[in-house]
């Protein structure tokens, strides 16, 4: 079979007009596949700018903090000594979707990256339910600008050191800055700035309400005129009884609203860190899917370009080589092994879904009766839109993928001397492996489950948290520095209690001197 090959460009050099023509072709193909994307903003940057982008976790504008400097130094060190290559691309969930391309990339790499980031990741950002719920692509850049300005102002007014300490404390808790069950309101810089003064004053009155010493009216008595109605008091702060009435998993939100001693600007900074943590929340939960989806599309689109004769054999070979490197999964006993490669796993699953749709086997019909033989494009879209890693694996990890990757399950129990292989890639093992792998990606398993259970508003103002322990897995040693940060924010003693099956297994306190008293 011979295709009339008219490559848009050959060789490894690129220029902007060539990239534009490739982008037009990719856009046409993406359109054919009905990929729904934000407009693309492709920025070509240098190596050093890429290291900058790394350091600021890919954010185009960030506030200043030493930890980003540390990140930059470590990236720079690793890169200069050849220990790591830089990513060829970085993409930001914003509208327009910003993608960074490194100037050093070859022509093939630029085309690959445009397909991967600007059509793969981009459509994922726009389609996946977690991103739709948790992030607002329209306003993120504005919000970052606002955050940077606000924090710079605070540094001017209150000193770099004070702000730095506060940010340290907030960063320690930023993984606990998300309400999982409530859709957040969209954030926009303009509005933020406008509302912020208002909020400062309002928040302070709220906190004052909470901490005032006048006794609360007994329950059942009509609220005093001018006091808060239920909308202003969603947590039931002022109705007596234990506070908070329900355990709170969003530690930063709780601090922002309730910490007695924080100044208004400090509350605003807590809020900024919380909002940004929330923005990254979906990314932490969709790594496998996101990368898998992007790999699937760069693979599909590049092959289409080749089939249509838009690229030559040389470019295609170069592409296949780097694609193979990206989705390579070394075995557990390989010196290159560093956990499961999300690109490999995600790509394998998406490719397999397509296979199940196009050419189902008897096994597929048994395991996936609802998707076997269905139109693949719709099924893939459904899978992309409605899942996160945890549920995606639970739903779509097929026996074939388990066999291909030769996945096996090990149980590591510190009370048993040996590790046990609990399941391998055979009929009896598929389900167990799928379950275990799915929970391996569940945030609730990856991170300790910690919640605020009580703030002693009428006592010594101490804060009590519960760590709901699972399978006897204790907290790591970092727990003390973290509760020290928490104590700084709260301003009064902090107690953290590890519980398993309703029994207390360990107590942590800050300040530490209370330990002897508390442990008894």
């Amino acid at each position: 079979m011979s295709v009339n090959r008219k490559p848009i460009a050959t060789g490894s050099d690129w220029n902007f007009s060539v990239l534009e023509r490739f982008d037009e072709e990719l856009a046409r193909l993406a359109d054919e596949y009905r990929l729904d994307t934000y407009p693309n903003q492709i920025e070509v940057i240098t190596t050093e700018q890429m290291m900058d982008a790394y350091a600021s976790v890919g954010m185009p504008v960030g506030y200043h903090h030493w930890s980003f400097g540390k990140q930059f130094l470590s990236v720079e060190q690793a890169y200069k000594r050849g220990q790591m290559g830089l990513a060829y691309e970085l993409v930001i969930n914003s509208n327009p979707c910003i993608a960074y391309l490194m100037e050093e990339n070859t022509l093939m790499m630029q085309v690959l990256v445009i397909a991967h980031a600007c059509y793969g990741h981009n459509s994922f950002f726009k389609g996946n339910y977690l991103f739709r719920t948790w992030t607002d692509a329209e306003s993120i850049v504005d919000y970052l600008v606002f955050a940077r300005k606000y924090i710079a102002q605070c540094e001017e007014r209150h000193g770099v050191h004070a702000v730095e300490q506060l940010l340290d404390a907030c960063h320690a808790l930023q993984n606990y800055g998300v309400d999982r069950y409530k859709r957040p309101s969209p954030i926009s810089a303009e509005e933020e700035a406008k509302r912020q003064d208002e909020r400062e004053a309002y928040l302070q009155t709220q906190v004052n309400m909470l901490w005032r010493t006048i006794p609360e009216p007994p329950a059942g008595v009509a609220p005093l005129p001018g006091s808060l109605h239920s909308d202003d008091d969603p947590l039931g702060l002022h109705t007596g009884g234990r506070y908070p009435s329900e355990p709170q998993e969003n530690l930063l939100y709780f601090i922002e609203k309730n910490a007695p001693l924080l100044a208004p600007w400090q509350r605003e900074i807590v809020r900024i860190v919380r909002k940004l943590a929330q923005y990254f929340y979906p990314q932490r939960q969709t790594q496998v899917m996101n990368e898998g989806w992007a790999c699937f599309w760069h693979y599909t689109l590049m092959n289409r370009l080749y089939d249509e004769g838009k690229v030559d054999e040389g470019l295609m070979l170069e592409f296949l080589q780097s694609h193979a490197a990206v989705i390579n999964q070394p075995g557990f006993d390989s010196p290159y092994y560093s956990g499961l490669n999300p690109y490999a796993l995600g790509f394998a699953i998406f490719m397999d879904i397509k296979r199940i749709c196009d050419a189902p086997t008897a096994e597929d019909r048994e395991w996936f009766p609802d998707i076997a033989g269905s139109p693949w494009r719709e099924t893939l879209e459904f899978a992309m839109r409605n899942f996160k890693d945890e549920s995606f694996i639970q739903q779509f990890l097929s026996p074939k993928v388990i066999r291909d990757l030769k996945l096996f399950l090990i149980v590591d129990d510190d009370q048993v001397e040996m590790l046990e292989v609990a399941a391998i890639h055979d009929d009896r093992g598929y389900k167990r492996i799928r379950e275990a792998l799915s929970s391996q990606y569940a945030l609730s398993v990856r991170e300790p489950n910690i919640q605020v259970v009580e703030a002693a508003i009428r006592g010594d103002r101490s804060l009590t948290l519960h760590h709901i322990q699972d399978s006897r897995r204790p907290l790591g040693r970092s727990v003390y520095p973290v509760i020290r940060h928490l104590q700084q924010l709260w301003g009064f003693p902090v107690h953290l209690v590890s519980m398993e099956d309703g029994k207390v297994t360990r107590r942590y306190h800050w300040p530490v001197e209370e330990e002897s008293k508390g442990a008894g």
Partner: protein
Amino acid sequence: MTYFIDRRPNAKHKSAVNRQRFLERYRKHIKRSVEEAVNRRSITDMERGEKISIPTKDISEPVFQHGPGGARNIVAPGNKEFLEGDKIRRPSGQGGGGGAEEGGASNQGEGNDEFAFTLSREEFLEFVFDGLELPHLQRKPLKSLEEIKMVRAGLARDGVPSRISITRSMREAYARRIAMRAPIKRALKEAQEALAAEERKDPVLRNPARVVELKAEIERLEKRIDAIPFIDTYDLRYHQLAAQPQPSSQAVMFCVMDVSGSMTQNHKDIAKRFFLLLYLFLEKHYEKVELVFVRHHTAAREVNEEEFFYSRETGGTIVSSALNLVNKIIEKRYPAGQWNLYVAQASDGDNWDDDSNICRDLLVKQLMPQLQYYAYVEITPHDHQSLWHEYEAVAAQFPERFAMRQIVDAGDIYPVFRELFKRRMSQER
């Protein structure tokens, strides 16, 4: 819809502030590493940066994490020979058999015990010489105002193309265009109105000659408007620079080194390293400081930098020869009224027996009254000899301006150097 943007020309060093914040925060750690490095590396090697390591635990950003222990499930790829129910010995060392890596949290740098990064040469020297200065530097009367700084001094109508002010030039051009067009435009408008009026007239009453005339007039005016240049040499404005004399503190450092036979190779090496440090320090922080190199055994000679550090010649020791030479050079070239005078001397303390008294007299009577500061380092692991004791007498008389320290081995060089040139006026942070 896609936009391509070339960001490469944008500002580099976006992370510079964050980098500085990091260095500032771990100042103590970095300083310790730098001190070790200065002592370790050969001093000719000061020109490059330095790899710094900080214990990871000191710079970690803690978050709640699972610790080791308990029971957990790990899914791993690449099973070759295991069957369900197999028992495997727990791999020693690295935590729970790869389980620790699963979280995706193990970034580069973390997990290792040391966080390593590289300071640039500039940053390295910044740390090496942090908090040091030439003591008692004074503003002496300025005779020769040679130091001149170019400062911006407004705009001028002529200058070199590289200093053209585009904004101002365009503003001038804009104003000129408005000014030059206005009368023509007015005339044009009148002509157009007249033509319109003419054309509105009944064809019978119309004056064809007038119409032609007006049309020609309009054409002429339009051409004139077009002919107004967008920019004219007349519009150009240039940034002007003016020379401004800078008050400067002239200073000279005399480096006096003993190269006599009693100085072993090791001693000489230490002395050289001391002076190299001094040299780097002055070069970095005091651009205008002059350096005079004096070597002596029984006789003293002023030499150039190259010879000072590298030449080999030896003999007996007469320290006063060097002090005499310094005194002569001061009289001849660096009158004390105009110059800040500094002397740094390195010796093993060995001297011709009668000479040490002479040195003291020379110092007390002639040199010290003129000098800002005199730093003496004695490189010896042994007991002090007469020179040290005589110098002690000098130090007693000029406690502020005369400092002496002993160096036993290479490890002392940097600490002694820091002590001698510590910033005095302000409190150390």
